[in-house]
């Protein structure tokens, strides 16, 4: 039988989602969206997906929520949806939901999928944690392209908001209490990120979780003016940004020179190469996620 907590979560999620999209005030919606994300992280945990829960809490909710918040300031006053429109949305949604739910209910009930195949081969992949094995090895091609999506999006964001950061986050001087707390928490976040990368090969954790946490710390530093805005003009930023993608490129390309496959890890080197790659990816992901935020002060502008 289905446990009450699962039933509660499964019903609460669509209801909150509905509130997120139907509330009059946009800031309320964003706050509700963050609450929604945290609840869905609980759902992932209930479904034995701690990796997904971590990433959802850190990236899907934490960073996306903060991004939405930071973009609220530039909004004009929203118009609440007209009643007929809200009703139309509800009707269409209900129809789609019923149709799709009946299709999902027809799916085979038993275990079906690549799970056993992954477990059988995870020894050869060099990492014991199955999700990391899939991400970094069996389906490494996906992850490689996904990293490029992230990098390309950051180039897009930079090109869109070139030099116009006056609409950025509020960076007025902050109180000494905040400073003290930030000084306490940022080193702790760095340690936590390192720990997540390191243990990603055996337990839930990995580059994306760690990168999101580092980015959280970086955003705190930006908010409290402890860190200058990230700009591609800075050598350090460029190095952090490209470390992951460049290393990934090399890991993909070099085996081809030795008659191997793209992204083939040399026998016995899987574990250590993946750890190195994940460390570099963590830095790049953290940099990219931080760059998604409107940077505080205007970047030094150089023409030509």
């Amino acid at each position: 039988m289905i446990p009450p907590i699962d039933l509660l979560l499964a019903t609460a999620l669509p209801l909150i989602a509905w509130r997120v999209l139907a509330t009059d005030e946009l800031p309320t919606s964003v706050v509700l969206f963050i609450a929604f994300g945290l609840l869905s992280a609980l759902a992932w945990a209930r479904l034995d997906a701690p990796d997904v829960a971590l990433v959802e809490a850190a990236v899907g909710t934490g960073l996306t929520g903060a991004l939405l918040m930071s973009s609220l300031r530039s909004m004009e006053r929203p118009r609440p949806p007209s009643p007929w429109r809200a009703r139309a949305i509800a009707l269409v949604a209900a129809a789609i939901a019923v149709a799709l739910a009946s299709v999902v209910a027809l799916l085979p009930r038993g275990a079906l999928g690549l799970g056993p195949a992954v477990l059988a081969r995870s020894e050869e992949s060099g990492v014991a944690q199955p999700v990391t094995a899939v991400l970094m090895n069996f389906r490494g091609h996906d992850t490689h392209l996904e990293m490029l999506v992230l990098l390309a999006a950051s180039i897009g964001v930079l090109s869109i908001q070139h030099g116009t950061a006056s609409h950025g986050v509020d960076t007025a001087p902050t109180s000494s209490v905040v400073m003290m707390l930030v000084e306490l928490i940022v080193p702790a976040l760095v340690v936590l990120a390192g720990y997540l990368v390191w243990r990603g090969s055996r337990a839930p954790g990995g580059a994306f979780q760690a990168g999101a946490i580092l980015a959280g710390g970086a955003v705190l530093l930006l908010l409290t003016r402890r860190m200058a805005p990230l700009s591609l003009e800075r050598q350090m930023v460029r190095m952090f940004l490209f470390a992951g993608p460049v290393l990934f490129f090399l890991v993909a390309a070099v085996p081809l020179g030795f008659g191997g496959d793209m992204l083939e890890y040399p026998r016995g080197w899987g574990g250590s190469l993946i750890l190195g790659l994940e460390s570099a990816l963590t830095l790049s992901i953290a940099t990219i996620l931080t760059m998604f935020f409107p940077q505080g002060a205007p970047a030094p502008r150089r023409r030509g």
Partner: protein
Amino acid sequence: MPPWLAYAASGVSLFAVGMSALVLHGEVMRKILAANVSASGVFLVLVALARRAPKGPPDPVPHALVLTGIVVSVSATALALALVRQLRHGAQLGPSDERRR
């Protein structure tokens, strides 16, 4: 009803709510929120499907797909929000001066 099916049904409902709001809602910010809600729905379906075996570890492949999906969706959201911010900001500025001719 097994728990995974409850979550899968919840997932498709999220998808449906998000998708219809994404298409029918007039406001850009709400559309972006709707896309994120809808994405959570798809991810919930995938993770629920991974949990179909009553015992033993869940299928890691959908988990990996969802992790990839979350990163793609945060990239799209960031791009959309940057566009929104710049549009609002650009309302006060002239057109870009650095395009050739």
